[in-house]
């Protein structure tokens, strides 16, 4: 049972293709400075300075989705990077060492070389280690924000600290960009970013409808522009188009999963190499994964063009992944209610502890508090060796059998 493709996807693919080609050209011909940025890093600041911004995590996801990641892992392990750590990092560096990239489909022979690498540790510390590899490789600066994790309440003190760090980054970035930061441009960029994420939120919320017009598996594909193009007008245009199509589906009662019988929430990373297989598996049992933590990670409600630095800092600190178990549980509880889910699936990604909320008893606590069944499956974002296919299929099927009897 194939996933019903959204008509807008064609436009999204073109948008992404243009983005990559543009990046490739900028890097090869030095027509614009290139900055690498972490997925929830200070992209707005970089865009406002005229950088073409590249997100290696997106490259990692592409390696995973094209099922090429595993071929590159041994090389990186041989270099001394543990197989227990981030498989985005390991597959990305391995591909680089092999001189290959799935971006070749956009005409790029290699990943775009960075003039500066900019991280934010709000999601994890490993992104810094990842960037430092390239920093050494290319002898370019690695700068960034050291943002707190396990944040309970988002206090003004924490926000001030991160805002201060953001401001401190400016001179170094200006030096690389060869231009001074224009306040108006930053304001506009932050404004566009906010608009993009508001639209993205609306897109995701269409799935609160019964039946849901899109699933988590759609979301993983559709979020591309929200990650790599937020802060641009094009991303907003795209999401308006997508939103219209989804609202039309809702109007006509068109479901992502025909005969939607059960609705689930997915917490944790996607298993990139198994999106289609999992999508088919759930569809086979008339189950729609209607909401997820992951897709909701690109909603930055705090962004405020009138107060760029502090609002970017706040958005960075408020992030789900940067929070303690308590706030995280509240978010999931609210989502479960909002989307009317029958059960929650937790994915424990072996090489991504920060996105695996299974390790300190949360699934059990939520099950008891919400009174709905939960399931944990073992896998990984990119390293398919860590995904137990047969176990997971049986577990998911068994979970749905259980829902059917309940």
């Amino acid at each position: 049972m194939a996933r019903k493709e959204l008509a807008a996807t064609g436009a999204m693919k073109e948008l992404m293709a243009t983005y990559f080609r543009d990046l490739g050209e900028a890097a090869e011909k030095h027509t614009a400075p290139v900055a690498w940025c972490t997925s929830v890093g200070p992209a707005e600041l970089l865009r406002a300075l005229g950088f073409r911004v590249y997100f290696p995590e997106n490259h990692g996801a592409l390696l995973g989705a094209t099922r090429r990641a595993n071929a590159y892992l041994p090389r990186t392990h041989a270099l001394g990077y543990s197989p227990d750590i981030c498989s985005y990092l390991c597959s990305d560096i391995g591909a680089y060492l092999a001189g290959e990239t799935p971006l070749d489909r956009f005409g790029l022979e290699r990943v775009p070389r960075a003039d500066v690498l900019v991280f934010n540790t709000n999601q994890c510390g490993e992104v810094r280690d990842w960037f430092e590899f390239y920093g050494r490789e290319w002898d370019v600066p690695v700068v960034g924000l050291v943002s707190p994790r396990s944040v309970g309440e988002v206090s003004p003190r924490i926000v001030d600290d991160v805002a201060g760090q953001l401001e401190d980054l400016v001179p170094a970035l200006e030096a690389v960009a060869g231009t001074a930061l224009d306040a108006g441009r930053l304001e506009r960029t932050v404004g566009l970013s906010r608009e993009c994420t508001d639209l993205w939120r609306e897109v995701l919320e269409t799935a609160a409808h019964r039946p849901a017009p899109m699933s988590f598996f759609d979301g993983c594909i559709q979020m591309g522009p929200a990650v790599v193009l937020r802060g641009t007008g094009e991303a907003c245009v795209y999401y308006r188009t997508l939103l219209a199509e989804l609202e039309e589906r809702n109007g006509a009662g068109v479901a992502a999963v025909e005969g939607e019988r059960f609705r689930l929430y997915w917490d944790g990373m996607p298993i990139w190499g198994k999106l289609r297989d999992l999508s088919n598996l759930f569809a086979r049992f008339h189950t729609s994964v209607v909401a997820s933590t992951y897709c909701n990670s690109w909603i930055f409600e705090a962004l405020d063009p009138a107060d760029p630095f502090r609002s970017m800092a706040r958005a960075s600190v408020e992030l789900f992944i940067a929070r303690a178990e308590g706030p995280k549980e509240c978010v999931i509880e609210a989502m479960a209610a909002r989307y009317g889910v029958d059960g929650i699936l937790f994915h424990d990604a072996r090489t991504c502890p920060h996105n695996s909320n299974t390790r300190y008893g949360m699934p059990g606590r939520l099950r008891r508090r919400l009174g709905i069944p939960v399931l944990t499956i073992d896998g990984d974002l990119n390293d398919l060796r860590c995904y137990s296919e047969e176990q997971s299929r049986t577990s998911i099927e068994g979970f749905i059998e259980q829902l059917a009897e309940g």
Partner: protein
Amino acid sequence: MHATEQIALGIDVGAECVKTIVLDGERTVRGRSVVPTRGRFQDCIHASKRAALDDAALAPDVPTRIGVTGFGAKAVAEADLRVSETVSHGASVFRRIGGGVTAVDIGGREPNVIWIDEDGRPRDSRTTRRCAIGIGTFLMFAARHLDVHPTRLEELAAGAGEPAQIGSYCSVFAGSEILERLLEGSTPGEIALGCIRSVAERVFEIGVFRSPVVVTGGVPEYFPGVVTALAAMIGAEVRVMPEPIMTGAHGAALRALRSVGPREAAGHGA
């Protein structure tokens, strides 16, 4: 005692089998045996010794110098000398091939990558990460699942075009993968080929293979496909020691000889 009358035994007590080699004073191989390690170590060691001496047409009570190595070295009570696997493999490689080489010992449990310098000294021995042990053992497991004798695995693999995807995280993970591939309809040949490649990958992950590279141990003996796959991954030629499974025992015997008897001429490492 006359040099040629001097007999040295080298015993390599491995996780999968016990190897014994018989050398005379001129370092000529006079006999050899391989006995599976099952049940009491002492029994297997005893059986291997007897078989090797029989092979050499020597009486079981002939006086010998005994050098031992391997996982179960401590179980040989009558050893005159115990050497690590790094040293024993290094000694054999230096004797037969020379110095300035990387020796890759692929046996039952942990593979070892050993740089042997120009003077025959083993330096910088590296092994696989903790989770990737169990190389030869894994191939035995794969053979059981495919319902073939381990010695037939290569033959099975030879008939396949593409390898089935078998990861190299660990034997247990790969074990489930074998089952999954079977279910998906991969042929036993494709799976055998995938297992062989997977094992090579685990060795490759150890990293840093300075040419020339020589492989030793039981796996190259019975599974030459692993060597071919490894060579392709390294991107360089890989030699196989003559009688690779006997390397450890050979080196232990060489060391046993060296530890007694006339002084050697300078410059000859073993």
